[in-house]
């Protein structure tokens, strides 16, 4: 009797192990998509991927990191496809041969946000670079991402345009080295100016009580592109899945979804599709 029971137990355990290993394989996904936190945190990616899976049966596994890390993962072959917003780094990745294509999908604007009282006078700035110069000149607190993300790279570009040393640190300059969400929280708490993508900013605006103070300008344009990693590095099935993802992002229906996303929650779209 005891022996029989032991046998049953053994079978049950074996079955459980099989079931688990099966599931683990399933959860691995068919496509490893590395993207930036802004696309995930706004909820756009989740909405798109549900439709993508319905249409193609491909399950994408998403890793959201800063664009710098995303590009490095692409370079090291630790991704199948990238969705990032750091044009210069992306072009370098394509030039190096690690990525075979860079397809702009959608865009929006960065905003310079700050306390409504606007002590540095950013509202009256003639350009984004002028706004940065005013913040630096008035020694106002500024919360920097400091994490080599696409947004941080844009900060650095604006600093250079403003004629400031990109490593310039005035006494109330903060470098968080964290994601957009936490950097916005820090800016809210310290009543600091901050450069943010519009999507994450709108999602945090009410909590942190900061206002968008900048006007759209070419130097605040923020383009998101899909990059396919060199297919020679990938398993052929994954390379094919990456191609399908790129085609999906360009499809009319997807572009319409992008154009509508955010209207309900934020009263305005967060991204403008580039192929509509």
């Amino acid at each position, binding site marked *: 009797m005891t022996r029989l029971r032991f046998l049953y137990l053994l079978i049950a355990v074996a079955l459980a192990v099989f079931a688990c290993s099966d599931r683990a394989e399933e959860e691995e996904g068919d496509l490893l998509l590395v993207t930036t936190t802004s696309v995930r945190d706004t909820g756009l990616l989740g909405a798109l991927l549900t439709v993508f899976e319905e249409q193609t049966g491909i399950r994408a596994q998403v890793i959201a*990191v*800063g664009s*710098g*890390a995303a590009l*490095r*993962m692409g370079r090291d072959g630790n991704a199948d496809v990238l969705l990032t917003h750091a044009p210069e780094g992306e072009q370098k990745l394509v030039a190096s041969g690690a990525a075979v294509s860079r397809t702009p999908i959608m865009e929006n604007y960065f905003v310079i946000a700050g306390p409504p009282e606007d002590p540095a006078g950013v509202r009256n700035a003639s350009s984004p670079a002028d706004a940065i110069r005013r913040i630096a000149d008035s020694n106002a607190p500024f919360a920097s991402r*400091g*994490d*080599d993300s696409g947004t*941080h790279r844009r900060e650095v570009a604006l600093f250079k345009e403003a004629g400031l040393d990109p490593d310039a*640190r005035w006494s109330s300059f*903060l*470098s*968080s*080295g*964290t994601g957009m969400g*936490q950097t916005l*929280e*820090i800016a*809210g*708490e*310290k009543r600091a100016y901050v450069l943010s993508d519009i999507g994450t900013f709108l999602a945090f605006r009410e909590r942190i009580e900061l206002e968008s103070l900048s006007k759209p300008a070419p130097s605040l344009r923020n383009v998101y592109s899909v990059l396919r990693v060199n297919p020679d590095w990938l398993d052929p099935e994954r390379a094919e899945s990456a191609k399908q993802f790129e085609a999906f992002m360009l499809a009319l229906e997807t572009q319409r979804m992008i154009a509508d996303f955010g209207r309900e929650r934020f009263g305005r779209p967060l991204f403008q599709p580039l192929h509509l």
Partner: protein
Amino acid sequence: MDPPSAAMLVEITARTLVVCLTALAISLAVGLPIGIALGRRHFRGRVAAVSLINTGMGAPPVVVGLIVYLALQRNGPFGALSWLYSLEAMVLAQVVIALPLVVGITLAAVGSLDEDWELQVRTLGVPKRWRLWLLVREIRLGLLAAVITALGGILSEVGAVMAVGGNLDGETRVLTTAILMHTQMGQLEDALALGAILLGLMLMLAGLLTVVQQSGRS
């Protein structure tokens, strides 16, 4: 973004030690008397108090961080302190993590004393003011265990200090948050270098305390 310079490594390491050792000192100063009192006195509500301590010993640091964050944020109950994203906030969160560990282990050490110990001491006619000193001597190995556990817990913790400290460069960046940051930025070599420092630090402190512990045994 440049890799961390030697000066920066020293700065981050020094800050880590200051925060952790301050939190440890506060936790010990508050936790030891509470642990001893809870271990010796029997009063109504003691079971509830001990359960609370045991729960605190297993509290996930990241949840502690979240609660301290909510308490300290500008619109929170203690927002007027302006402590969020400062060293004070990090020490506070670490005290909340370490205090239950110190109280719990002290309590266990006192509880493990021979039941007749108190009686023996009284029978020997030891004056009351010396009894406490004798007690502390008797449980010193348990107290060292409390110190090592608490220090290990807060030195290696990242969730809470990230939430309430914000990893601000030159202000609240400590070893664990810097490691996390460099990992997320894909700068694995830098993350590894900082990790080696943290491990070395833990090894040194644990080694030091173990030597004290072993010499106390003989």
